[in-house]
């Protein structure tokens, strides 16, 4: 996929944010970022990105909270939300699946393939439509 996408990264760790931004911009995508859930929701409303890549563990508002807010906003119906997770808690996997994310990326990310995965998520669009 060579078309430029508008991507919102929500991640509290600056190094991880930097890595992802570097990879995605290197492949020609437009990247904006927020360091917590609150800012993430605000930016999402403002930018209406194609996709939100969002860490699960964050201060103020975590990934689940962000998802809830975004889903509650009819104006953000088309936005794909992907969890970026380290699967560190025993029931993370079940929780992510049950929460209603459109997909997930596992940390640590694989730099060789992560951009392709993100482009794949954008192409696939919302998993369950607006339901």
């Amino acid at each position, binding site marked *: 996929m060579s078309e430029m996408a508008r991507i919102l990264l929500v991640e509290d*760790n600056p*190094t991880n944010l930097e890595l992802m931004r*570097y990879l995605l911009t*290197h492949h020609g995508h437009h990247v904006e970022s927020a360091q917590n859930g609150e800012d993430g929701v605000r930016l999402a409303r403002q930018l209406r990105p194609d996709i939100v890549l969002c860490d699960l563990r964050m201060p103020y508002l975590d990934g689940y909270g962000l998802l809830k807010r975004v889903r509650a906003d009819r104006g953000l119906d088309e936005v794909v939300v992907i969890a970026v997770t380290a699967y*560190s808690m025993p029931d993370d996997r079940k929780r992510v699946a049950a929460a209603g994310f459109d997909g997930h990326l596992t*940390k*640590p*990310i694989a730099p060789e393939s992560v951009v392709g995965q993100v482009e794949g998520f954008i192409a696939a669009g919302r998993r369950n439509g607006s339901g």
Partner: protein
Amino acid sequence: MSQGPLPTRRPRLQPVEDALLALNPDALIVTDPLTRIVHWNAGAEAVFGHREQDALERPLVELLFPGDRAREVERALPGTRGCAADSRLEAVALRADGSLIHVDFVTRAFQGTGPGHVLWVGRDVTQPRLTQAARHLEARYGELLESTPDGMLLVGETGHIVLANGNAERMFGYDPGELQGVPVDALVPHRVREVHVGRRAGYVNQPRVRAMGGGAELLGRRKSGEEFPVEVSLSPLRTDDGLVVISAVRDVSDRLNATRRFRALLEAAPDAIVITDSQGRIVLANSQTDSLFGYSREELIGQKVEVLLPDRLRGTHVAHREGYAAYPKFRAMGAGLELFARHRDGREFPVEVSLSPISTKEGMLTSAAIRDITERKAVQRRLEEQNLELARASEAKTNFLAGMSHELRTPLNAIIGFTGTLLMRLPGPLTDEQEKQLKTVQWAGHHLLALINDLLDLTRIESGETHVDLAPVDGSEAALEAGTQVRSQAEEKGLELELDLPETPVVIRSERRALTQVLMNLLANAVKYTETGRVRLRLRRVDDTVRFEVQDTGIGIRREDRQRLFKAFSRLERGNEKRPGTGLGLYLSGRLAALLGGRIDVHSRVGVGSTFTLVLPGA
């Protein structure tokens, strides 16, 4: 003697006559009209044992025929109403030593020597009578007596044994015929003899049938002096030779020993044991019962067993008890029967009860062993509290590890990620040396990641947090998935990866994720330790198992190393190459296999290859 002899009343006898009287072996007695003894010769003393001075002035009937016998003798008294004819009287008389004898009296009344004097000439005919009676009884009952299993003693009115059967002779240690004529008192211990004489006299006066075991505990005495417990039943038999008492004697040493052993057993038991009859009345209790419930045994015997229960449970217990009586069977302790018991002071305490029916002649008894489990309950409670504590600690540990793992991964994300971007030459070209070093960093990063993942998995399994939800799984699909995961690694090393799967699905009850993880571990190991050749995963059913065989053409494992394979952190030194891995893979796989109800078998030949087989239940 309140008065001295009265010579005026005594007949004046010639010296010859005096000598005649003195030397006569028969008892020669003269009584006055009030039947008081006025003459008593040496023969009388020999026959009856009373000395002259003790006999004079005593009423003869009172002296020789005390009790009920007196009337019988009085009826037969001669000539007090003017009849001068001689008469004969045979009677059982009491001797001074308490023994009884048969006496044959000839009496003559003398009107001339004073009013109503009577001469009594008596002779001890005990032995002839006994012999005679024995002859009669033997002829009549001999065979019958020999055929009874008990010792049989036929005792005459005088207390002498008339006849004894062989069983009695053997029981008491006498030779055949030896017991005949022996006073039956010889068969009881000396110390109880006097009591026995009294009892016997009582029995002879009022004879009736008395069943065995109906009386007190009796002791017999063998000829050797040895004493033994007996049960005796008595029945009177009137014969031409007078009243005969038939005694059936049973040696109950064995039974008493059994009873004693039983009691000893009861006492030795650590539990309180209460035995109840079919109505729930306590018939026996051991001393542990006393201390557990605070009652003395005497208080408990005869009470309903419900006395040992709290009031609120008594009603339902009666129903339970009756239900049990209808279908009695052994019920072990801890078999769902936990009750509360009530101490005499009203205190309740938890008990465990086991029941077993005892079938006896007296009916169905129930033996209840009762154990105070207050202490155990307390321990149990403490354990539960500790378990809760442990669970909390374990949860804390899990949370800690999860947090640690997250914290460790975050920098790893940067290490692996930026090494990757560099190796992808996104920022610019690399020299060969830079690439080589970066690859080392990348390898180390991946290794660290694997370690963290395995440690986390391990923690979950060890703390019991890994639950597998068994559901139908197609083993072929799991094998395919695992194969896909390791295919690229195999191809990188130039190894052939072969999946030998059946055409039809192999459905087993398992958990897909755990199953795939084990297969992946086994395949990855095979690839890791194989330099040339192939890695093959074969799936097949064998009997009622499903086997996933992962076979490689690798370096193999020495026999002595195989036990260590499935231990945590026990990587084997195989060759000198540095191989990625945490040392936890097989350990985790083994634990997961166990969770899935299976195991991992290993076959290996050094230099030829190894086969790791995951064996799962096939259903």
